[in-house]
C-alpha cells in the first residue's frame, strides 16, 4: 500500500534513524556523487545522475580485515572482525539493489560469507526510483527497471512535493515512520529506455570462445580495473596477510580479472596471458558462467562501465556485436 511523505517528513524520519543507526547515502564530493556514511541529513544529495561507484562497497568493502592473529609464544588465537552496527543504505537506484541481490547468490551460498551475511541482515535498503535516466542506462534489458521495487526494503518515488513511500518487506514496514497518509495520487510512469536485445547472448557466448572478436575488441583495452571496480556485480577479491603494525591481519581487497596477477600461479603459469583472453573473461563471467551457476545474468544495466571506460568498451555494443558475429557465423 503506497503512503506519502513530504520532504520534511522524510528529513525528520532520516534524522530519527540517524540517531541509532549508520546511514549511508549519496553525497556530493567534488564533482562526483559517492555513497558514504553521513553525519547530518543535509549532506544527502537527492538529485544525481549516477554515483561513481556502486553501493556494493558497503557489503564488500574495497579493503577489509577478515580476522587478526593474536597471541604470542606459540599460543595463537584468531579473532574474526565483528559487525556491530545496524545501518540504512539510502538512495540506491533499483539497478544497484538488483546488483546486491545478484552478489547475494555467491556470497550467501553455503558455506556463506559470515561478514557479508551479517552486514546484509543488519542493513535496510531504502531505494529511490529513477525520475530520469542516463543515455548509458539499460536496466530494462537486464531484468530490472527504473521503478523495480523487488530488491529493496522500502522504495521511494519522487512526486511534486514529496515522495511515495512503498514498504516492500517486513524489515521495511518496521522502519516506516508512523502516521504517513495513504497516497492516492497518480504514480508517475517510469522513463523510457533504449532496449539492448540480449536474448541470444548466452548461446552466442558458448560458440564464440575462440573467436578472434575478443582479441580485436581488446586491442584498445588498457586493462585497468575501472570497469570492475565501478560495477555493482563484479565481486572478485584477493586475500593476503599483513604483518605490519605489530599484528598479523588477513586482508581482503577488491581485485579484477584485468589485473596482471589475477590468474598467475606461483610457478609462473598463467592460463590467461593475452589481452583478448583477459577481456573475454570479464564478459564470459557475466554472460555465461554466472548465468550457468545462478540462472541470472551478472549485469544490471547501470551503465557505469560504459560511462567510465577510458577507451569506450561499451558492454551494450559487445552484447549486440556477439549476436551479430553469431548470425554471420551461422548464416554463412
Amino acid at each position, binding site marked *: 500500500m503506497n503512503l506519502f511523505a513530504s520532504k520534511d517528513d522524510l528529513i525528520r524520519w532520516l534524522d530519527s534513524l540517524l540517531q541509532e543507526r549508520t546511514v549511508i547515502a549519496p553525497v556530493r564530493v567534488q564533482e562526483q556523487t559517492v555513497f558514504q556514511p553521513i553525519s547530518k541529513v543535509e549532506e544527502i544529495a537527492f538529485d544525481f545522475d549516477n554515483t561513481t561507484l556502486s553501493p556494493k562497497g558497503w557489503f564488500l568493502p574495497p579493503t577489509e580485515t*577478515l*580476522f587478526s*592473529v593474536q597471541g604470542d609464544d*606459540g599460543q*595463537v588465537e*584468531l579473532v*574474526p572482525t565483528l559487525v556491530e552496527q545496524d545501518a540504512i543504505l539510502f538512495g540506491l537506484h533499483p539497478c544497484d539493489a538488483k546488483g546486491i541481490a545478484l552478489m547475494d547468490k*555467491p*556470497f550467501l*551460498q553455503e*558455506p*556463506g*560469507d*559470515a*561478514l557479508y551475511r551479517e552486514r546484509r541482515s543488519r542493513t535496510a535498503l531504502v531505494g529511490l526510483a529513477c525520475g530520469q535516466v542516463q543515455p548509458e542506462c539499460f536496466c530494462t534489458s537486464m531484468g530490472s527497471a527504473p521503478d523495480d521495487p523487488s530488491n529493496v526494503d522500502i522504495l521511494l518515488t519522487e512526486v511534486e512535493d514529496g515522495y511515495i513511500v512503498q514498504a516492500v518487506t517486513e524489515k521495511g514496514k518496521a522502519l516506516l515512520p508512523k502516521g504517513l497518509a495513504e497516497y492516492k495520487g497518480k504514480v508517475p510512469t517510469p522513463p523510457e529506455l533504449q532496449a539492448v536485445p540480449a536474448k541470444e547472448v548466452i548461446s552466442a557466448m558458448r560458440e564464440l*570462445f575462440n573467436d578472434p572478436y575478443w582479441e580485436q575488441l581488446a586491442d584498445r583495452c588498457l586493462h585497468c580495473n575501472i570497469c570492475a571496480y565501478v560495477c555493482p556485480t563484479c*565481486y*572478485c*577479491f*584477493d*586475500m*593476503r*596477510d599483513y*604483518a605490519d603494525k605489530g599484528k*598479523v591481519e*588477513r586482508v*581482503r581487497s577488491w*581485485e579484477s*580479472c584485468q589485473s596482471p596477477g*589475477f*590468474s*598467475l*600461479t*606461483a*610457478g609462473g*603459469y598463467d*592460463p*590467461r596471458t593475452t589481452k583478448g*583472453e583477459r577481456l573475454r*573473461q570479464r564478459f564470459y*563471467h557475466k554472460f*555465461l*558462467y554466472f548465468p*550457468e*551457476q545462478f540462472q541470472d545474468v551478472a549485469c544490471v544495466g547501470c551503465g557505469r562501465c560504459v560511462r567510465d571506460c577510458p577507451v569506450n568498451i561499451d558492454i551494450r555494443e559487445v552484447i549486440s556485436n556477439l549476436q551479430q558475429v553469431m548470425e554471420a557465423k551461422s548464416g554463412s
Partner: protein
Amino acid sequence: MGPESPFIPYLATLKTATQLTPDIKLLSVELEDPDIRASFDYKPGQFALLSAFGEGEAPFGIVSLPLRKDGLEFAVRRIGTVTRALQELEPGDTLGVRGPFGNYFPLEDYVGKNIIIIGGGIGMAPLRPVINKILERRDNYEELLIINGARTPQDLVFQPEFPSWMETPRTRLELTVDKGDKQWKGRVALVPDVVKELAPSPNNAIAIICGPPIMIRFTLAGLRNLGFKDNQIVTTLEAKMKCGLGKCARCNIGENYVCQDGPVFTLEQISQFLEQP
C-alpha cells in the same frame, strides 16, 4: 565447532617437516581441535588451503590418506612467498588449514580398469594418495603403470615409497629424468616420450596426469594418439585459488570453478575451455 566464517582457518601444529627434494618438503600437520581432527574427512584428489600467518594462503593437495595416524601431509615446493614461509616453519609452530575442498578422483569408477598414473615433478604429490589407495585395495584394479618424471634424479618425489610401489603385484614403476647425473642409471627422457615409448593400451584404461602445463599438453597429445578418448584422461588442474569456496572467481576456468567443480576433471569436461592445455 568449526570456524564461524569459512574464511577463518582451523589452527594446526606442524609435527614434522622432511626434505623430499632440494625444493620440496613434506609437511606433516595435526589439527589442534580434536573434534575437527576427527571430522576432517577427505578423499584422494581433494586439497586444503594452508595459511602461513603473516604471508597468506595457498592451495595444496592433501597427499596423505585418511585414517592414517600421521595426520595430514602436504608436499610444499618452495616457489613463492607463502611456500617459503611454510618451509621455514619449525615443528611445533602453528599454521592454518582450511578445507577439505574440491572434488576427488572417483576411484570407485575405476574398479576393474587398467590405471596409468603419470606424474611430473611436484605433480606426483597429489597422485601419491591415489597410488596408495589403489595399493590398499590392489585386487579391485587391473594393471597399474606409474610413470614418474622429474628434472633431475634428486627431484623425484617420494623416492622412499618407490620400493613398496614396485613390489606390489601387477604394478610397474617407470622413472625418467630430463637430465641425469653420474649415479643415475635409469631412463633419461621427457615424460611424453616415455608415454609414447611404453604405449599403454587404451582399452579399459584410465590415465591420470598431473604435472607442469607443458608436460600435460604433450602427454595429452600422446595419449590421444594412442587412442585414449577424452573421458578416459583425468587431470588435476593447478590454478590460482584464493577462497576455495567458489566466491572469489580466481580459479574460473571455462564455466568451472576449479576449487568446487575440480580440481579433478576429465579432459572431456575442460578441453573446450583449456586455453593452454
